[in-house]
């Protein structure tokens, strides 16, 4: 508190003191002017023997004009006293004769009127100046208002332009999707997807025939080649089944689904892949997870797709144990079932992350880039949300939530 008060004092005092000193100086200057006028009058009177009292009138005018009304009135008073003493007979005496009284009165009256006229003029000028300043301030205010309005307009225009650009980009993207979804392109992608396992089938079948055709057939080699041929054929038919299920547009079935059970079934489906890739799988499934309402097959496709993605993301990892962690839990607040599939694979860079849910975007040489967008649309069609988090080089977490079916705890 004290320093603030002190601040106010220090800040105010010099200014106040300055104005007071100036006012004092103006009064002193008025006195000096009157004294000068008196000295001139007396000097000239001695020389020419006439009363040169009109210098006093000039002193009054100058005082008011230059130093203000206060000093002006002081000059009027002083000059009247001086006139009474020096210029009203009997000279150099305070006494006034009756017949000289009108002269003295006229003198004082003239001084007062002069002073009043000059004051009035100064006031008018002051008012005019103030009005002009006020006008300037107002013009400045209006200019600022205009400028801010102008800025807002420019900002809005930029915003609109940005929106238009975004619209344009969306349109271009749509056009792109439209283009790549033409039958030819899609067929080429599918052809490649199917071709790879077919190549394996043909090579293995050829090998099998060759091993059997030797003079002493090598049955072990032939058997394992035949097995690989079957594997490849199964893979090819899996691809076809996947594509067919993508194309099929049957309305999703609505039935209670226990996701823990679906996860366990899916684990059985990919057990071979898990083994081949030497992946360590851990399940942390919440007991008594509520059921969700939905299409069991579609939801299984999502989980399968996310698991296969996770395994493939770890294929290039050789410096650490490949870990696949699948968790489920129930979020009581949101009344939602939450599933997360976490790997410690190569991860996804930030640039890639923004695009992974775009149709036909893929980082793999095999794959048509529809897995994630379709998974997301399935989850969203079930009223849920699917999203991903990843640290490049450390792995990814894909997770989704689905609304729990009411009161259907298992």
């Amino acid at each position, binding site marked *: 508190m004290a320093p603030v008060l002190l601040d106010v004092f220090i800040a105010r005092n010099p200014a106040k003191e300055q104005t007071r000193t100036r006012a004092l100086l103006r009064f002193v200057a008025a006195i000096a002017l009157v004294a000068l006028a008196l000295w001139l009058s007396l000097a000239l009177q001695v020389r020419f023997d006439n009363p040169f009292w009109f210098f006093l009138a000039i002193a009054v005018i100058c005082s008011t004009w230059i130093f203000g009304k206060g000093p002006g009135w002081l000059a009027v008073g002083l000059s009247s006293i001086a006139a009474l003493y020096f210029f009203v007979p009997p000279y150099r005496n305070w006494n006034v004769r009756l017949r000289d009284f009108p002269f003295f009165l006229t003198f004082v009256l003239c001084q007062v009127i002069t002073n009043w006229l000059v004051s009035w003029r100064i006031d008018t000028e002051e008012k005019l100046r103030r009005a002009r300043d006020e006008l300037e301030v107002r013009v400045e205010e209006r200019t600022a208002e205009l400028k801010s309005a102008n800025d807002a307009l420019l900002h809005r225009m930029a915003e609109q332009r940005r929106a238009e650009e975004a619209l344009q980009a969306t349109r271009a993207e749509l056009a792109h999707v439209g283009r790549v979804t033409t039958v030819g392109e899609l067929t080429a992608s599918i052809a490649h997807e199917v071709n790879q396992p077919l*190549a394996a089938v043909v090579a293995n079948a050829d090998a099998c025939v060759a091993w059997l055709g030797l003079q002493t057939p090598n049955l072990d080699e032939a058997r394992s080649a035949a097995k*690989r041929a079957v594997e490849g054929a199964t893979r090819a038919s899996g691809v076809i089944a996947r594509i067919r299920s993508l194309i099929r547009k049957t309305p999703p079935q609505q039935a209670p689904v226990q996701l823990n059970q679906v996860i366990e079934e899916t684990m059985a489906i990919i057990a071979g892949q898990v083994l081949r890739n030497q992946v360590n799988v851990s399940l942390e499934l919440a007991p008594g997870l509520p059921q969700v309402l939905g299409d069991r097959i579609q939801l299984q496709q999502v989980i399968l797709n996310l698991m296969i993605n996770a395994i493939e993301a770890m294929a290039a990892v050789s410096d650490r144990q490949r870990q696949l962690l699948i968790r489920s839990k129930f979020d009581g607040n949101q009344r939602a079932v939450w599933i997360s599939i976490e790997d410690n694979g190569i991860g996804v860079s930030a640039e890639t992350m923004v695009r992974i849910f775009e149709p036909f975007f893929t980082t793999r040489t095999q794959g048509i880039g529809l897995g994630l967008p379709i998974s997301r649309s399935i989850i969203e069609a079930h009223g849920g949300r699917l999203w991903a988090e990843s640290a490049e080089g450390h792995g990814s977490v894909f997770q989704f939530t689905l609304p729990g079916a009411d009161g259907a705890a298992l």
Partner: protein
Amino acid sequence: MKEHDPIVFIVDDDPSVRDGLESLIRSVGLRTMMYASGQEFLRAAHPDAPSCLILDVRMPGQSGLDLQRELRSTGIQIPIIFLTGHGDIPMTVRAMKEGAMEFLTKPVRGQDLLDAVQKAISRDRRLRQRRAELMDIRARFDSLTPREAEVLKLVVAGLLNKQIADELGTSELTIKTHRAHVMEKTRADSLAHLVRMSEMLKRSIAE
């Protein structure tokens, strides 16, 4: 199998395709080595034997064409048989220009692949032989003294002993002695043989 038996390298990222090809090639009695990527192939040690490389064009990361270029730039000469899902013409032309032996589309017929492999291996065998021969000739030629090398140059250019002596400012007898040394050191049976060997060397340097 012996150290110098032919060997087929297979580079394909798809394990089941790789296994099938490997089994097929092994069934005709050839040695095989498999790699999941070009990097893996480059890192591995390769036995000194006639060989060829079966290479998948489309692989994640380094593609087959990238590997071909890298092999070429490091001076490794090996016949390459490319496998591709759907090879387009520009890609095929590029690979062939870079020296690919064969370009086969997947799924490849077993017999076609085996034929290509046999052709590639016999070509590699020929190339290796030629390289060995050349190395031998070069070693012999390198053993000549600077003076003998000068004489050789002029002999091969078709000059007579007398002319060579004039050119080098020495006696015909000295040239005769140098010439005998050259024939002996390079193990040339005749002047024609000497010329042929020096032509071979010249060509190999030009290449």
